[in-house]
């Protein structure tokens, strides 16, 4: 590991060779396909995820049978763990499209090896988030009432309601991000198809790859499609959490009725998503032996993004206090005082510590390049961001305008079980994904590998089999 005494490593953007440990296209295929072989550790992790999911599923069945009274709702706090966890998972779902679309448009090199993981994370996180409004309404079979469809009662949803905006935003986001994930996978599935020896798997992969052949016209249309999907996904990412923030900001409740909410929620969502990307990608690079793909340089660059979004979120937290003071509204001022020094002080300080203070460690290059620290920090960020939503929802609802209306809130065992179950559900899908499909984008990694040239064949940099020789340790870029 690098120490402060050593010279600084070149930034990924200025590195001549981004992946010095990868010699040629064939190695990319071999290394990534090798990660698809199931291991005992993977089966164990999948078993744990399924067990957690079953805990949540059992609790939900119990709640459906006995009623919503088994969740910890108590007037005036009628939004609790389910809405907190809904916002939490929607937020997690933001980093995937940020990394795959926005960083694609900005040509950020470090996205290449982590974006597939982040995209899959997005789809599964939004799938998880989508369950929570359905759980929260208590009668899940009535959920379809939110969807506009022709019906004999001639009744339509109220398009002025933020909850209907949510339905449109989340379902559009889920559809577009799943489509983005699948079409990005098509060339990689074709690689798997042509390397597969099991006839049944080969047939399935042939169907999924849609007969993709890597021809020039296919790539030409594919690249144009990818560009436009990225261009559409960029405002979509920003809109989805803005719309989620309208669920709060459109209400007159103290602590919610603020115009800063949309950018504040978007920054928080991206921050939490990057935290979850670290939680996922750091074990994957270690257990799948992908350190030469997801390099320390990539983690370093992603850490800078994490630090930046943490500072935006921290700035938003502080501005909220300033706005409350400057507004001159006694109820707002009382609420924000109560947030940090009142009944819920512990939740607010968990939020502030995990989201504002711990990420400041990323100013240290040594810590940015330390995967163990990044993993520990990512757990703190996940906890901090869940508590951010707790702090937004519970203290506001429990401490509104009239003191006689004030109340408390304590999650029940059903709430907690469903929260735990959501992690099981998310990781179950993710673990199944990483053993069926490539967790690193094969075609895009090949794009950043120097192609073979005839000058190499004349003896420069090629071995006897016609492959690139390994790059020397003096090559700019990561070589740990």
């Amino acid at each position, binding site marked *: 590991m690098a120490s402060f005494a050593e010279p600084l490593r070149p930034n990924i953007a200025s590195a001549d060779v981004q992946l010095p440990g990868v010699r*040629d*296209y*064939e190695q990319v*295929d071999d290394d990534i396909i090798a990660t698809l072989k199931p291991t005992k550790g993977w089966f164990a992790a999948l078993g744990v995820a399924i067990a957690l999911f079953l805990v949540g599923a059992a609790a939900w069945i119990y709640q459906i049978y006995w009623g919503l009274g088994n969740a910890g709702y108590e007037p005036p706090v009628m939004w609790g763990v389910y809405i907190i966890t809904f916002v939490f998972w929607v937020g997690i779902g933001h980093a995937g499209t940020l990394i795959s679309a926005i960083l694609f448009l900005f040509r950020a090199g470090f996205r290449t090896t982590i974006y597939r993981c982040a995209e899959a994370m997005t789809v599964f996180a939004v799938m998880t988030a989508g369950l929570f409004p359905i759980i929260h309404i208590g009668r899940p079979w009535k959920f379809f009432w939110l969807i*506009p469809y022709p019906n004999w009662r*001639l*009744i*339509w*949803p*109220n*398009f*002025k309601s933020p909850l209907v*905006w949510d339905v*449109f935003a989340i379902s*559009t986001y889920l*559809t*577009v991000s799943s*489509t*983005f994930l699948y*079409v990005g996978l098509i*060339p990689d599935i*074709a*690689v798997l198809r*042509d*390397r597969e020896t099991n006839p049944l798997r080969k047939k399935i992969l042939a169907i999924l790859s*849609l*007969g*993709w*052949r*890597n*021809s*020039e*016209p*296919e*790539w*030409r*249309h*594919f*690249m*144009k*499609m990818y560009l*436009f*999907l990225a261009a*559409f*996904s960029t*405002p*979509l990412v920003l*809109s989805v959490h803005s719309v989620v923030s309208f669920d709060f900001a459109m209400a007159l409740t103290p602590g919610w009725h603020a115009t800063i909410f949309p950018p504040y929620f978007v920054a928080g969502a991206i921050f939490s998503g990057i935290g979850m990307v670290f939680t996922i990608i750091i074990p994957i690079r270690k257990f799948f032996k992908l350190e030469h793909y997801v390099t320390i340089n990539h983690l370093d660059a992603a850490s800078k993004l994490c630090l930046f979004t943490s500072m935006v979120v921290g700035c938003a937290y502080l501005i909220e206090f300033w706005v409350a003071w400057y507004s001159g509204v006694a109820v707002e001022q009382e609420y924000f005082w109560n947030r940090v020094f009142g009944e819920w002080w512990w939740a607010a300080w968990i939020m502030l510590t995990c989201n504002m203070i711990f990420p400041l460690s990323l100013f240290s290059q040594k810590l940015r390049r330390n995967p163990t620290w990044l993993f520990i920090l990512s757990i703190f960020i996940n906890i901090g961001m869940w508590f951010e939503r707790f702090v937004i929802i519970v203290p506001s609802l429990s401490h509104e305008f009239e003191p006689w209306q004030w109340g408390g809130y304590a999650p029940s065992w059903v709430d907690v079980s469903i929260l735990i179950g959501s992690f099981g559900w998310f990781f179950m899908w993710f673990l199944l994904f990483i053993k069926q499909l490539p967790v690193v984008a094969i*075609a*895009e990694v*090949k*794009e950043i590998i120097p*192609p*073979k*040239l*005839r*000058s*190499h*064949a004349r003896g420069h940099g090629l071995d006897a089999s*016609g492959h690139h020789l390994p790059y020397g340790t003096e090559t700019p870029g990561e070589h740990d």
Partner: protein
Amino acid sequence: MRRGLVAAFREIDATCDAIEALKKKKYDFTVYMPTPRHEIEHAVEPPMSPVRRFTLIGGLLGVTFGYWVAVWTSEYWPLVVGGKAIASWIPYTIIGFEVMVLVGALSTVAAMFINSRIPKITATTGFDPRFTHGDYGIYVEAAPERLKEAEATLRQFGAIDVRGES
């Protein structure tokens, strides 16, 4: 009757030179590459992809439908609140935007499928699995009497393997 030749290349510059030569001799050909490379695009000089038109039309249809469904349903079953518009375009912009993104994005993907001619049922003619691995490929289609010249051109510019396809 036209027949084909499938050639595999190991190096990108060899592939580009072969493409230039085939263009000069007016052959019909398809190029394969493991990953999109601008060098090959410059050599092939393909026409602009029409995907963008589908995106524009899809986006416009989506935004129109999004606004329309919100306005029409509001007028059909009015929720009358004193001093408020029955159909209010400001909140309906959210619906218009989301449906624009949805329809625009799906039209873009459909455009890629239509223009790339996928899904394909037979993926084997004029193709070799090496082209999804590490090698570049050129599939030349020509009348039988021109195939010998095509093969010589491909080999001259560094094809490591050339095979016939009927």
